[in-house]
């Protein structure tokens, strides 16, 4: 069997259910692949791992992948299992925020590490400077949880539909007290979890073939996860070496994730791609990418599915 190493963007959780299901259910094996899944973490830059040669393929968000490409690491999108974005901005209602224009003078918490780009584009579109002035917004780098919102240290924070949003709900803040802005609705959505490889590796037909089999099996995994969300969540839990995840949360997460992967065979929708590039180019004074990327996507794999 061919060895393939997959580097995830984040820790083992329902977000990556498809890959764990494919591994657990033997879909990879059926394709003659021996897949190792490496979980990510707050400081794992999947691009670095890929460039260092410790992984063959990675899950990454398109903004950071395109940024890396412009910085000289030629990563290429070979498939896009997530058709939709799960990124939200969640505010407490008591702050008086009703529409994005009300952000003025407020404190927004976001993740960084490449995840701040969509927000920057959005703010640029709204014409709000990020300098902390009364006319603009104060940006804070938040950790990995929703405490800043709960502790009222931030008025709004970024939250994934499938994860942080539910943590807020679980913490006891009812939906009625929250105002949620969806990035897709605001027209600043960017593509999230896609599969990326190094460009020159695609010159090798054998590698392309491996990736074809890999993506095919992965998509099968996603399909299975959509059909059996609870089982998928259990598989994720089993693979979580920290033993810290809860069943309730993971089952819900897989269901939410399924809404994002629904209706795609993994082929990248070029309209969404163009939309992502447009958003990233409009990042105000510090755009994420400065020019339209070339060759950042490849259909070499998805064509052969």
């Amino acid at each position, binding site marked *: 069997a061919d060895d393939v190493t997959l580097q995830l963007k984040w820790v083992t959780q329902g977000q990556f259910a498809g890959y764990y299901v494919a591994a657990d259910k033997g879909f990879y094996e059926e394709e003659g692949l021996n897949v190792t899944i490496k979980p990510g973490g*707050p*400081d794992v*830059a999947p*691009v*670095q791992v890929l*460039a*260092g040669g410790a992984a063959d393929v990675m899950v990454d968000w398109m903004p*950071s992948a395109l*940024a*890396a490409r412009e*910085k*000289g*690491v030629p990563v290429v999108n070979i498939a896009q299992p997530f058709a939709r974005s799960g990124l939200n901005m969640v505010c407490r209602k008591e702050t008086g925020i009703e529409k994005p224009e009300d952000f003025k003078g407020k404190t927004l918490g976001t993740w*960084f*590490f*490449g*995840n*701040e780009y969509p927000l920057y584009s959005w703010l640029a579109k709204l014409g709000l400077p*990020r300098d*902390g002035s009364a006319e603009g917004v*104060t*940006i*804070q*780098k*938040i*950790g990995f*949880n929703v*405490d*800043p919102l709960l*502790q009222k*240290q931030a008025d709004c924070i970024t939250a994934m539909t499938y994860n942080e949003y539910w943590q807020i709900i679980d913490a006891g803040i009812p939906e009625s007290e929250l105002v949620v802005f969806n990035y897709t609705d605001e027209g600043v959505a960017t593509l999230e979890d896609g599969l990326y490889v190094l460009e020159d590796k695609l010159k090798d037909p054998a590698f392309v073939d491996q990736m074809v089999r890999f993506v095919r099996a992965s998509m099968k995994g996603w399909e299975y996860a959509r059909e059996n969300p609870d089982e998928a969540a259990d598989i994720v839990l089993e693979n979580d070496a920290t033993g810290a995840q809860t069943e309730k949360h993971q089952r819900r997460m897989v269901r939410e994730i399924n809404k994002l992967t629904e209706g795609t065979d993994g082929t990248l929708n070029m309209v969404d791609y163009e939309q992502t590039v447009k958003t990233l180019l409009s990042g105000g004074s510090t755009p994420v990418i400065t020019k339209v990327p070339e060759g950042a996507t490849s259909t070499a794999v998805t064509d052969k599915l």
Partner: protein
Amino acid sequence: MAAALLGTVSAYPAAASHGFWAYVLVAWAMAWLSVEELSGLTPQSPLGQRLVALAIPLAFGVWLLILWQLAVVGFGVPRVLLPAPSEIWLRLLSSPQILWEDFRQTFLKAVLIGYALGCGSGFLVAILVDRVPFLRRGLLPIGNLVSALPIIGVAPIMVMWFGFDWPSKAAVVVIMTFFPMLVNTVTGLAAADRIQHDLMHTYAANYLQTLLKMRLPMAMPFIFNALKINSTLALIGAIVAEFFGTPIVGMGFRISTEVGRMNVDMVWASIAVAALAGSLFYGLVTLIERVVTFWHPSVRG
């Protein structure tokens, strides 16, 4: 020699042959020899000595940088993993404004204040623990416990308690620096030998006099040991704490975000500033140590 090497490399990037590496090896040997030569020098004037003492590590460092440059270029290491020193240098030159603001946020606020509070409290608690045998037996084990709290566990909690700005980082620094100070001071306070104690005893010196005139001076080498270790720990602590929530300024913030943006040269520029600041800080503490513990055999001889 170095210039020739660098020239070769830039002419034939990623074309390192065996010959090339032999060349590098020779360069390394020469570096060693030149440092050896330099450290053999003993100029008469104090100024000259100071200069040599500075020149040696610098020469060594320059050779390290050259080697680094050669390795990066020679092996064709991806830039996003490890940039060449030249790139870092360019970045340093081009972004002084950002680096200065980060420095001010992290070093001048979080590190210095946290260091002062952490070392200060460690010292005071050590005195307390030493004075009250009950606490020595009760608090010292607990002190070990608290101070061994891993920063990455503590940092998010501190953010939760003290907010996003520097106070939470200073709190992390306090926790990190507290223990080394405690342990070293307690050890140091026990360093005086019997006859020195007896002498104070014969004067019926009170506790405070014995402390000030004998035990603290005796403890100074140990206390400075802690101050030196802490000077580097404090910096690491503050930077790492910034990984867990911060306003968008600070060395830790810069490092963590720019990695994600693949601006690895910026990351290393920040690291370079951190290393420089830390080294100078350490150097300063060492200088003060030499003045204060001039009598200790390790300084005297």
